[in-house]
């Protein structure tokens, strides 16, 4: 007999104001001990879906059922309050803040603020864990520690939902792909230098070129061989 889901969504839909539907008609179940990985391109709605599943925002359509409180790590903006980081972790998570710096949370770097909030959230005794890109800003060792802690939560029967750009070193799990433009249509390459390259003249020490993604590496190699420096490479959609 299949386990009763601790988190389920039926015909879920959400959009901001009168904008496009980020997702619509979405139905999912997450059972105890199940890992669900949510993937998709930028703007596909991963963070919004996680906020809806966690109960931080109400869906515009459909409904969500949670069997208990949710430990939710939102997509952080780095705005922790001016209280001690250790105090914050112990007040939110109720656990000792091992490895957290003895400093004011708002004075920490964004990476450390994220780790502080993650530490607080992982201390919550919730049967559902919803983490939005928890590996962002973590080094490899912290990445593996996080994966180990999540494995322990899964083994203990907690349901875990992750939005991830870079996959955590965590085996298994079901994947929910929200699609979205994962590959850019074009890539903008800005070179630093003087003169012309591929018939285009530099202006103010910069030369901007737009190429399909498949031609990016060849362009960069040719530019470097011609003595140009690469200023930036960014996707265009």
């Amino acid at each position, binding site marked *: 007999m299949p386990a009763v889901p601790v988190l389920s969504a039926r015909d879920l839909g959400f959009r901001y104001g009168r904008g496009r539907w980020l997702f619509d008609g979405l139905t999912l179940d997450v059972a105890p001990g199940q890992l669900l990985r949510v993937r998709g391109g930028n703007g596909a709605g991963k963070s919004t879906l996680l906020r809806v599943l966690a109960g931080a925002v*109400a869906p515009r359509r459909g409904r969500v059922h949670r069997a208990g409180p949710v*430990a939710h790590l*939102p997509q952080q*903006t780095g705005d922790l309050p001016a*209280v001690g980081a250790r105090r914050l972790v112990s007040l*939110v998570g*109720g656990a000792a803040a091992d490895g957290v710096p003895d400093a004011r949370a708002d004075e920490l770097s964004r990476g450390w603020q994220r780790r502080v909030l993650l530490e607080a959230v992982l201390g919550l005794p919730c049967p559902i864990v919803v983490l939005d890109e928890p590996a962002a800003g973590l080094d490899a060792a912290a990445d593996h520690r996080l994966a180990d802690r999540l494995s322990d939560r899964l083994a203990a029967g907690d349901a875990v939902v992750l939005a991830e750009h870079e996959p955590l070193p965590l085996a298994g799990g079901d994947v929910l792909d929200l699609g979205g433009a994962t590959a850019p249509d074009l890539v903008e390459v800005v070179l630093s230098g003087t003169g012309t390259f591929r018939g285009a003249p530099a202006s103010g020490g910069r030369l901007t070129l737009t190429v399909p993604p498949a031609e990016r590496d060849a362009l960069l190699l040719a530019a470097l061989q011609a003595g140009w420096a690469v200023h930036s490479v960014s996707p265009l959609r």
Partner: protein
Amino acid sequence: MSRPAIPLGRAARLGVATAASSRSVLAASSAWLVVLAAVYAADAGPPLPALAATAALLLPASAWATAAHLAATSADLRQVLVAADGPVRTLVADAVPALLWLVAATAAGVVANVVADPHPAPVSARLLGAVLHLLCGCVGGALALALHAGHVTRGVQALVVVAASLASARLPWLPPAGPVLSTWGTGEPPGALLAGWATGGPVLVTAGLLVVTLRCRRRR
């Protein structure tokens, strides 16, 4: 309702710690003390009208202190609290520091009246004055919560609070300041209907603003 993952006491302590470290909350507190000093610098008249006047002034002061506290708190942490404890408990946790500030501001207002107002008055008048302070301050705090939930910019929030305070002070029927000033601000004993509206009106307005706050928070 499920058991909260973060007990309300811990969430409220986090809010109080945040408010205590906010310079803007300190500025609002200082401004309130300056207002009291200005009112009682000269003879403010009989205690109850004076208390009604300072209660009306507590509307914008309370809104300022609450807005300052909300601005000092973290949107990320609020999302964590909502997921763990639900929107109503999170709203209560947000309101606790504002209520503590309001109680302190009310105490300061009544103590200032006791100390600086030379006119004699029964204890019941000063207790009524304390209630009026709490009512007006609750509306100010709830207004700040609703504006914050609606993601209104700080500048527009200030404009709305000032406009609401002036309108309420000028219009005798508009809670909280209008009915308070038109009933107990004159020194004449009010009728039962007016007294009921002066105390019930702010409660209704506060409840309405809290409902708006919850609805706005759920849609963002």
